[in-house]
């Protein structure tokens, strides 16, 4: 499917959930940064797993176990290709980005951070890329430093270079902001961090469904992905890490699967990725996740970005046309994913959200788990519309019409 022939009706036909009414109106789903909907192949794969293949994976001496293990490891290979990792073993399954970040903080951080070391994060991080670092800094005596941002929602790179020093050991930064949509210049951040000997973890929760990913070209040390924000099931996340780092990290949790040999005196640990996958993993959801990646590959990231940018531009142009004096937009970075935060003058985002819901439009309201960022703008929260590849121009018009009615009331 080429860029010019992106068939939105065909894409929409793969998402059963989109074809329903909410409060008497056709559902308009603009809460994709929170979670995307799932294509039918993902849903069917999940059902098929429990109907036809269910067995615990690895080491089973029977057909179902073999089959399930094969499907599970197939997804790992799909993830490897999706992000262009050197080997599949560098892709660890977690339950989401939050767990992926905690894993790195609690293993790499615990083993290698020393008093006086510094961890750099940015002002626009999601709480899940703040709190794990606060916790490990407190434990190890390292310091947490915050890269400021500009009013337009872009990272203050000048300040970043000032903060970066030989004390910096970890830079943990969001690739694309969930609240503002800002795409950060991650290649520049990675290269600069490496020059001072720091490693970089990217929070790829929002980048996953929108941006092309090539971890080898980026030379990123850790990348985290969320399955359910990438058209996949909930409860599946990915931690990519360079082998040389994963190999020297201590395990995260102890249990089955992560061991080589156990005695009461001592235990030797399994190789990666299994060293970090203690216990029975989320087999069914991981297997189904492969079909989400195939869905994205089938359309192509370039076509996705192009379409989503059109939706975003159409929305912002509409706001400028009728409401720029009554509706404030947050986040005007030059490079953005299709996320737009806004506030109606004098209106609490919760009211706006409920009124939009009354017209069948799903948006998110609140602080989006980025309270420091909200504080930066001097607000408690925003209304956030976030677009996905299955959204249409007509749906954006429905949102614009509803907002128009609200500001004119």
């Amino acid at each position: 499917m080429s860029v010019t022939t992106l068939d939105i009706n065909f894409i929409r036909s793969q998402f059963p959930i989109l074809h329903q009414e909410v409060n008497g109106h056709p559902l308009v789903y603009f809460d994709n940064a929170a979670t995307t909907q799932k294509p039918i192949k993902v849903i069917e794969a999940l059902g098929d797993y429990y109907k036809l293949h269910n067995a615990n994976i690895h080491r089973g001496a029977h057909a179902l176990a073999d089959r399930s293990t094969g499907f599970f490891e197939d997804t790992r290979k799909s993830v490897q290709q999706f992000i262009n990792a050197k080997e599949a073993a560098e892709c660890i399954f977690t339950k989401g980005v939050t767990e992926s970040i905690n894993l790195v903080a609690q293993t790499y951080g615990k083993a290698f951070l020393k008093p006086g070391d510094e961890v750099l994060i940015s002002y626009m991080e999601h709480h899940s890329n703040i709190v794990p670092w606060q916790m490990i800094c407190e434990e190890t005596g390292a310091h947490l430093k915050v890269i400021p941002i500009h009013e337009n929602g872009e990272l203050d790179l000048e300040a970043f270079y000032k903060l970066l020093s030989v004390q910096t050991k970890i830079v943990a930064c969001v690739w694309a902001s969930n609240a503002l949509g800002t795409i950060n210049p991650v290649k520049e951040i990675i290269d600069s961090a490496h020059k001072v000997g720091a490693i970089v973890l990217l929070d790829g929760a929002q980048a996953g469904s929108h941006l092309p990913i090539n971890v080898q070209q980026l030379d990123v040390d850790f990348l985290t992905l969320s399955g359910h924000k990438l058209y996949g099931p909930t409860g599946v996340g990915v931690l990519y890490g360079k082998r040389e780092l994963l190999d020297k990290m201590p395990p995260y949790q102890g249990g089955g699967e992560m061991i080589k040999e156990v005695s009461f005196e001592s235990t030797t640990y399994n190789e990666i990725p299994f060293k970090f996958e203690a216990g029975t993993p989320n087999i069914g959801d991981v297997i189904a996740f492969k079909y989400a990646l195939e869905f994205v590959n089938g359309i192509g990231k370039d076509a996705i970005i192009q379409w989503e940018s059109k939706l975003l531009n159409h929305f912002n142009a509409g706001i400028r046309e009728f409401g720029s004096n009554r509706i404030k937009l947050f986040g005007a970075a030059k490079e953005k994913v299709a996320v737009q935060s806004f506030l109606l003058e004098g209106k609490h985002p919760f009211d706006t959200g409920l009124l939009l819901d009354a017209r069948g439009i799903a948006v998110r309201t609140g602080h989006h788990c980025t309270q420091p960022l909200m504080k930066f703008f001097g607000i408690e929260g925003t209304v956030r519309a976030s677009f996905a590849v299955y959204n249409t121009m007509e749906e954006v018009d429905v949102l614009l019409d509803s907002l128009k009615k609200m500001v004119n009331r």
Partner: protein
Amino acid sequence: MTSTEIQNEIIDDFSLFEEDMESKLFYLMDLGKKLPEMPLEHKTEEFIVKGCQSKVWLYPVKQDGKLFFEADSNTEITKGLVSLLVKILSGKTPSEIVETDLYFIEKIGMNHMIGSQRSNGFASMIKQMKMYAFALTQNN
């Protein structure tokens, strides 16, 4: 009027909107605007009923064995709902307040507003009103 009579009147009013959720919400916002202004000195941290997104202030006043409520909210729709609760419960005896079954919420199609404790102060407010009343029944 008894709390049952008031609730039935509210249900009647809302029945005009049938399934039109948007009109219901606009009507609630208008009702909220009619709520008597809460004295600023009572809008303190102590009298906040917190939700994740909307805040409610609730100030109880005892008078002649009855319990009256002053209330406000930082969101218009919650404030409208709050005004309905004040209309139903304010000026009743503590035991009446404790025993009142607030069936109107479901009947006007607003049960989703009490479903998620985290997201709005309305659900917590009902609990708080009953707590104030319950405390009074224990003291007497």
